[in-house]
């Protein structure tokens, strides 16, 4: 009984370590075989359509609503202290520093990440990757790397659009609906939001999230058992794993970037 559970534990550990090793090798191979993704940039552009452009609607609409809710809630709280003019600061800082990169990344993981995993998993299950190998075309260079770079390029753009849309939503609710002074809204925002500290760090965050999400999605698809259940399970795992990775990375990055400020 005891021996059995120790054996199980050992088995699990070996499997986990093996998988981590495989994932690392896969990631390095992707980076090493990225030449094609840039030499034939058309391949990457095509994938940017699928991961970036097709995620636009959900990113823009969510950004607008998140900004509007932030303005409503923020106004309620700020009003208590008589500093409604700080509404612009509140909306802009929360979006640019945290909500923009993080929420856009979570949406990206469920919209584009799952699609990438399903596509790669299906290509594997229907032997398309094998066929490509037999045609002397490296699937890592031809299929995986362009999707990786497309995700890494799309993510910061999507996060920026999310933040911009959110600030616009905050402006609509705060200034147009509630009636906070427009000049104060923008000027306070401008004096409080710093380009390097806030906006650049937000962009760096979203690039890191883009790397994490697409790498996880591609690996899960590539590693999926070549069956229908295998692919659907891998798709679910992509969303769960990459969402957790985004939140954990966000904590680590925030601790590094904003420590000592405030």
């Amino acid at each position, binding site marked *: 009984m005891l021996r059995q559970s120790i054996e199980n534990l050992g088995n699990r550990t070996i499997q986990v370590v093996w998988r981590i090793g495989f994932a690392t090798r896969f990631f390095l191979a992707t980076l090493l075989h990225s030449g094609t993704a840039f030499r034939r940039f058309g391949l990457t552009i095509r994938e940017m359509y699928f991961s970036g452009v097709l995620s636009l609607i959900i990113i823009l609409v969510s950004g607008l609503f998140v900004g509007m809710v932030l303005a409503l809630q923020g106004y309620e709280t700020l009003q208590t202290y008589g500093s409604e003019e700080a509404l612009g600061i509140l909306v802009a800082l929360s979006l640019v520093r945290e909500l923009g990169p993080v929420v856009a990344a979570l949406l990206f993981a469920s919209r584009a990440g799952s699609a990438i995993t399903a596509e790669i998993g*299906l*290509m594997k299950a*229907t*032997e*398309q990757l*094998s*066929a490509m*190998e*037999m*045609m*002397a*075309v*490296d699937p890592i260079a*031809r299929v995986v790397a362009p999707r990786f770079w497309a995700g890494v390029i799309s993510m910061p753009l999507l996060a920026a659009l999310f933040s911009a849309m959110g600030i616009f939503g905050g402006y609509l609710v705060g200034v147009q609906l509630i009636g906070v002074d427009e000049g104060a809204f923008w000027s306070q925002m401008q004096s409080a939001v710093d380009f390097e500290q806030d906006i650049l760090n937000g962009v760096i965050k979203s690039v890191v999230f883009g790397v994490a999400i697409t790498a996880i999605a591609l690996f899960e698809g590539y590693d999926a058992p070549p069956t229908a259940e295998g692919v659907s399970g891998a798709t679910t795992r992509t969303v769960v794993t990459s969402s957790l990775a985004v939140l954990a990375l966000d904590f680590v990055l925030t601790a590094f970037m904003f420590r000592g400020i405030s």
Partner: protein
Amino acid sequence: MQHDNLVEIEDVAFGYGARPVLKGINLTARRGQVIAIMGSSGCGKTTLLRLIGGQLKPGQGTVRVAGESLGDLDQAGLYRLRRKMGMLFQFGALFTDISVFDNVAFQLREHTDLPEDAIRDLVLMKLHAVGLRGAAHLMPAELSGGMARRVALARAIALDPMLVMYDEPFAGLDPISLGVTGNLIRRLTDTLGLTSLVVTHDVQESLKIVDYVYFVSEGVIVAEGTADEIRNSELPYVHQFVHGEADGPVPFHYPAPSYADDLRLRGKGA
């Protein structure tokens, strides 16, 4: 490089983990012939094809294609050799996100610098050879199973390979598509000077077109010979396989304890 044998497999063994699949296979394929590899499902036929394609490395023995030992080649060498091979996968394995035309053009665009006009002509010629020139603009999802396999065949011969491997080309086809596919394999082999390696368990269809047959069972070659020799073989396994008998060397029943024991038909006191 005029070797008479295009593919030479010597004493090859292979296993997935601890489970041995192939235990010492010897096989040769002469240039210009259609060779069939037969055996029941799960006997390692597909594994054999992957070994020849270099997608798997044998645990023991050597695989030689056109005189080059695959075990000695690096990635680049393997890819160079693979350009001279075509492979038809079980269900075609067409790229589902691009059209029939682009599927056939795929290798031409990846491996050659031909202008788009030349590619277009070549693709239409290959599609014409399999009778699907009119389907060039369709997407793979719009094709029937038999058509998808013919497109895959056109794709496999796009770079005029010297060796084409077929993984179960007859599985799941209606009788007409079956005849069409069989004839295509024979005709393309003869007209293009290919060597064809067909993995199948469809005896009747393949015996019509092949030159030589290998029978694989439990990881070893149990019989080999020309189509006529196989048809008239008296070996119990081959006889059972060719005539599709339910019981024989391959038993109908999975190994089990005695039937009577399982149903508890013995007397209580026994």
